[in-house]
């Protein structure tokens, strides 16, 4: 008797769970033409995505489209989640695939082409996909950050390039991320490949290993556990992070800072430029609403919101940067670049070889 009740309860629970979803499911309440009050656009993204309430309200009020965000783990997880659910897309728009993984998205036919009018305000260097399936939205440099105080205190000159890093005086001073797991780790590996070439980068890494480079699995560990200038007070004064991290250190400081405690090393190829893209997911039932959202994302209001929300740069050249960016964030004049196709063809091989060289 008792057990049967349990069973019914469970089934009731499952059913209620299903109906609960059915009510809020995006497909249910769609209008095919025009945007009524109840058009809901679902945007899939990674968990570092952020934006202002004010800005999204602006869009929602103007367009009558309600936007729901679906965050799904880090950059790699989110993309793979989108690829795995390609047959029955969970969302209409995907925000946040970067140039190290773009080829995977394009190969999977994840996106539909959209030649957005906003593209005219975006410099050519960011337009990786000539078919406009993936449209650039933001960018930033993965660079080595250093602890200013450490170098001043020890009267140590800054390393200016990768070659300097191999010198004994910088032994054990750098922490990098595992490229197999971490996105900045992969970007930094690609920078060394770009600089030394596919035949030479392993020698660099062998030398770095010899010099006692530290490797962490994630940016969070590297920055907060290993890096000496972060709040975690770790042992290494140099970390692979972002060119905007010094600005974030100032913006999120406990007490007002006139100067950032960290800065980036901006040598030739020492920074890798990551560009993030947005795309309309193949098979969306709301193409028009999706286009409208992409337009909005490329427009100045959203673009100017990007820096302080996600600490990357807007691609729209009309967008103005906040003061903390102008003062404390840095961009390399000579970032490392590798073609998307080359990355696509060799990413796993390079990671594997790196793992063999540095970790084994």
């Amino acid at each position: 008797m008792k057990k049967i009740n349990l069973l019914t309860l469970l089934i009731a629970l499952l059913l209620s769970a299903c109906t609960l979803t059915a009510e809020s499911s995006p497909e249910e309440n769609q209008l095919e033409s025009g945007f009524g009050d109840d058009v809901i656009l679902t945007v899939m993204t990674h968990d570092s995505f952020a934006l202002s309430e004010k800005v999204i309200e602006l869009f929602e009020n103007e367009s009558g489209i309600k936007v729901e965000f679906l965050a799904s783990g880090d950059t790699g997880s989110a993309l793979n989640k989108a690829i795995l659910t390609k047959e029955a897309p969970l969302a209409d728009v995907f925000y946040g695939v970067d140039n190290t993984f773009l080829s995977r998205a394009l190969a999977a036919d994840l996106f539909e082409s959209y030649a957005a009018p906003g593209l005219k305000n975006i410099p050519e260097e960011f337009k990786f996909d000539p078919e406009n399936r993936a449209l650039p939205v933001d960018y930033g440099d993965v660079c080595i950050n250093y602890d200013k105080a450490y170098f001043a205190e020890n009267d140590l000159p800054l390393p200016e390039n990768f070659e300097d890093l191999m010198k004994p005086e910088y032994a054990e001073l750098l922490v990098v991320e595992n490229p197999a797991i971490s996105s900045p780790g992969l970007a930094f590996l690609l920078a060394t490949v770009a600089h030394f070439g596919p035949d030479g980068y392993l020698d660099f890494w062998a030398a770095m290993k010899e010099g006692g480079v530290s490797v962490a699995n994630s940016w969070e560990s590297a920055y907060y556990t290993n890096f000496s200038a972060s709040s975690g007070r770790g042992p290494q004064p140099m970390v692979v992070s972002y060119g905007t991290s010094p600005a974030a250190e100032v913006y999120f400081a406990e007490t007002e800072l006139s100067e950032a405690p960290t800065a980036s090393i901006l040598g030739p190829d020492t920074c890798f430029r990551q560009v993030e893209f947005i795309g309309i997911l193949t098979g969306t039932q709301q193409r028009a609403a999706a286009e409208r959202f992409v337009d909005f994302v490329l427009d100045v209001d959203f673009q100017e919101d990007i820096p302080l929300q996600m600490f990357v740069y807007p691609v729209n050249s009309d967008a103005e940067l906040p003061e903390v960016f102008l003062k404390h964030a840095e961009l390399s004049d000579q970032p490392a670049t590798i073609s998307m196709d080359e990355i696509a063809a060799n990413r796993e091989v390079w990671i594997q070889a790196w793992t063999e060289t540095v970790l084994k």
Partner: protein
Amino acid sequence: MSTRKVAKSAEKKKVFSSRSSHLSVPFRYRDSILRWAPALLFISIFFFYPLTKILGLGVNSSVFLSPESLQIALDSLGFTLYQAVLSMLLTLLVGLPAAYLFARYDFRGKALLRALTAVPFMLPTVVVAAGFNALLGPRGWLNLSLMNLLDLDSPPINILYTLGAILLAHVFYNTTIVIRVVGNALSRLDPRLIEASRLLGADPWRAFWRITFPLLRPSILAAALLVFLFDFTSFGVILLLGGPKFSTLEVEIYIQTLQMLNLPVAALLSIIQLLCTLTFSILYSRMLAQTSTQVAQQDTESRLRRSKNKRERIFIFTMITILFALFVLPMLALPLRSVSRLEADRGDRADLQTSLTSDYYNELFINRRGSRFYVPPIEAALNSLEYAGITVALSLLMGFPVASALAKPNRMDRFLDPLLMLPLGASAVTLGLGFIIAFSRPPLNLIASPWLVPLAHTIIALPFVIRSLQPALASIPQRYREAAAMLGASSLRTWFTVDFPIVFRAVLAAATFAFTVSLGEFGATSLLARPDFPTIPTAIYRFLSQPGGLNYGQAMAMATILMILTTLSIFLIEKLRLPGRGGW
């Protein structure tokens, strides 16, 4: 009347009562089927179905069983087993005496210390790593004091990214399992059995090995299995504290699935991990079947003692010190850090200037950047609590009937038993992705549903609930029920008046497990939770994903809130007593 006669009449009664269960086969299993149905239905829908969906994507490829794939699997399997065995042994080494301490002795602050040992279980690894770093890191308290004390130039202890860090963290996380599962059995163990053996000439050591240990064997086995499986499928600890040099199956599954999108290899690794889990669970069932089935236990907790002689006092003092160093100190680092500001004077390296501040807590309540995804800490806490509450309810509802079937298992129960442990062997990433693929279209379109998170948590909590309920239910002597039935209690009344009070403590322990599993789960949650319904762990993770002192401080403040919340909950749960049962 002769004794023989008396004995026979008792026997007759027994035959009579057991005859009622000698029914035809379907009838004999009917009870079992009914008890298993909810849980089996649940794990079929929410575990096996998504699992086959995700694994199905990989197994058809030729890469699936290629030598390279097998090589990857073998490489990580070796280390996975090695570290899991070591971690389990160390955890038992700390956990068994700790369980003894809590079950047998009374001392001031016991309830709090006991509650604190359960807190690590639900702390996100990022936060634990921060706590360990603050204590044992190159510039942690310990190293700084040792450097000052011994006048050293470099930190003497280097534990970060070593096997030692992995083992330490596993002990830190999982000792609570031993304390709760074994301690629960120990506190129900009749101390007179030990006394009887002492009087029969057994010294304390032999009394332990011949009486206490065999009687505790089922619960020690259960605890060891749970600890082992947790260590075997460990992810965050390996990733963040072990560092890149160490890779377990679970870490490799994560890399292959989410970074490489190499589903065939991921599927192979997942299947190996599941098969191992199944093997260990079957081994466990076998070993359990060899030990005695029922242990006469008292229904009231044995009288707790304050320390009596010098040896006992030394034991208690040593254990409290160890537990304090192992559990309280690393956790203490977090609340301390959450209220101390590091001064901007960054030139001075060894002695950091600190001052007290409540800034981080204040900041938690401010949506400074006007973010769409800003969530007040109260709301994140409420989300976490809500998910945990649903998890507790669901897992108890489904776990209890299964545990009662397993308390007096028939062949069907024994056969089904190991299946229940399988969810512990599935990687959170695999499960999370499986959910996404399986439940993203009708008939079960749950992907946007907030239910998805507690459903996934229930899958993970269920084995814990069943394992902690089963020994207690098994310990209810049949004669109590018979006595209650004789007094006219219906079977439901019997359950309420006899079974329930006896297993009440075990239910509490099970609920605590389900609660903490849900509060601390991060892997599946990060894939399934909606950004506007973050749990405390996902909120902490969000803070730590950007540089800056305020972010770090807020993460520590949030972690402190999580710790206080869970300490309080556990403290209260364990303080619960049944009305009218003073001894409990």
